[in-house]
């Protein structure tokens, strides 16, 4: 489903974030990406969503070469991915409902159908009762759950989560991991980056370790 072949990424200034990375993710797999901060976990996820482009090698998603994708096709790629960010990237000028509604508006969904989907997504992350609240009133864990609701409302087949439990206490982190586990059980492909040892110990799944931009065996 996702494949990296000898991928390297250098940032302007010569810093090599990724060096000669090759791996594959199968459909329906839950894969953990681990390593210290600065090991290249975020860069790797950004390459999949075409937020960054590789300097060498090929990144492909569903057979499509993401490194060579033209700008006009990027939006359609991203609509098939659910992106979950460490800093949530929520919009604070609108309530929870409208935050989750945004991807459906972008994709041009019918309004009534959208409202149903938004409520279903909010329900799944346990925020349905607070749909009228604003994100500023939410705790860190709740904000992360809202971010997940926004990522899944489009029903993407692939979810990419960058340090989803980064700043959370154990209970909140476990709540989020349980949500991911339930997606995994219904067949979604998940790629989760984390440096949280307790999560890696608790949950089943293949683990890829990055160290200074290189994949460890």
């Amino acid at each position, binding site marked *: 489903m996702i494949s990296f072949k000898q991928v390297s990424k250098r940032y302007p200034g010569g810093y090599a974030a990724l060096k000669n990375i090759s791996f594959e993710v199968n459909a329906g797999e839950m894969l953990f990406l681990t390593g210290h901060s600065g090991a290249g976990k975020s860069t790797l996820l950004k390459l999949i969503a075409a937020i960054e482009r590789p300097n060498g090698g090929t990144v492909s998603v569903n057979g499509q070469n993401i490194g060579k994708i033209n700008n006009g096709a990027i939006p359609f790629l*991203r*609509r098939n991915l659910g992106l979950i960010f460490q800093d949530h990237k929520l*919009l604070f000028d609108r309530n929870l409902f409208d935050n989750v509604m945004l991807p459906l508006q*972008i*994709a041009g969904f019918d*309004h009534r159908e959208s409202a149903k989907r938004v409520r279903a997504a909010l329900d799944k992350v346990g925020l349905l009762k607070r749909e009228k609240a604003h994100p500023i009133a939410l705790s860190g864990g709740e904000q992360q759950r809202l971010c997940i609701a926004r990522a899944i409302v489009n029903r993407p087949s692939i979810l990419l989560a960058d340090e989803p439990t980064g700043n959370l206490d154990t209970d909140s982190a476990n709540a989020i991991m349980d949500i991911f586990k339930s997606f995994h059980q219904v067949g979604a492909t998940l790629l989760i980056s984390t440096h949280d040892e307790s999560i890696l110990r608790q949950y089943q799944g293949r683990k890829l370790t990055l160290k200074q931009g290189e994949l460890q065996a």
Partner: protein
Amino acid sequence: MKSWLMHHLYVMQYTLRRLRTSPVSSLLNILVIGVALSLPSGGYILLQNVQGLSDKLVGAPQISIFLSMNTSQDEISRFSKQLEQHAAISRVEFVPREQALQQLQQSTGLTDVTGGLTQNPLPHAFIVYPKSNDIKVLETLRDELKTWTKFEHVQLDSAWVRKLEALLKFGRLAVLILAVLLSFALVAITFNTIRLQILTQREEIEVSKLIGASNSFIRRPFLYFGLVQGLLGGSAAWLIITVSLSLLNASLADLTQLYSSNFSLQHLSLGDSFTLLAFSAYLGWLGALLSVSQHLWQMETR
């Protein structure tokens, strides 16, 4: 299709809401656009009125020939035939002196003056309608007719209209230059308004792009905003012109009464009004398009 329409409707509502959230700055923007557009449009409408006036005064060019007082009936019918056979003349009209006096009394209201005359001071006259409209041809014809005997005075009536025409042409050019310059100003005003909006919504744009918004989706609300602002600015210009014209007409009424005329300034025609609104909406849209495209381009090359 339906969801596409719904989306446009939603964006439209969103645009109007955004105009309402900052009423003072919206109003000022609309007013600035209105004033900028009302200058060339006002100039245009004044020129149109002068043009209409000159058209009313003289339609087709004509040459008046005043015969000397001692011309006989025989000579008149001979001249009439000769003029009708002339290659450059399409139609000839004879005005006997009695008829000329009557016309003078009717049209100018000088009955008191003419009534006091013991004899008719007016000569017989021919009014000649040339085939050509070209001022050079007309002048040659006039000069030729001047050489005929008994043709006391030959006058090319449209000469001053030609001068007015040249003056109007100059005026039109001036209005055009003004219109072009102020159109640039309008585009610049919208460009700047939209730029400020983009800066305050930077986060929303970036997040939307991350979750799959196309550039046209991001552009759309800004384009609508530019369009609506331009349209409202055009309406403001229309209102400014309407109010100005009615004020001018009110004071013009006092003036024309003294000259016993009923001249009044005509308003913009329906077509012209529509053009004004469409043009200002287009310029607003263009300013927004330039602004948002430039910003998106910056985001992509960053």
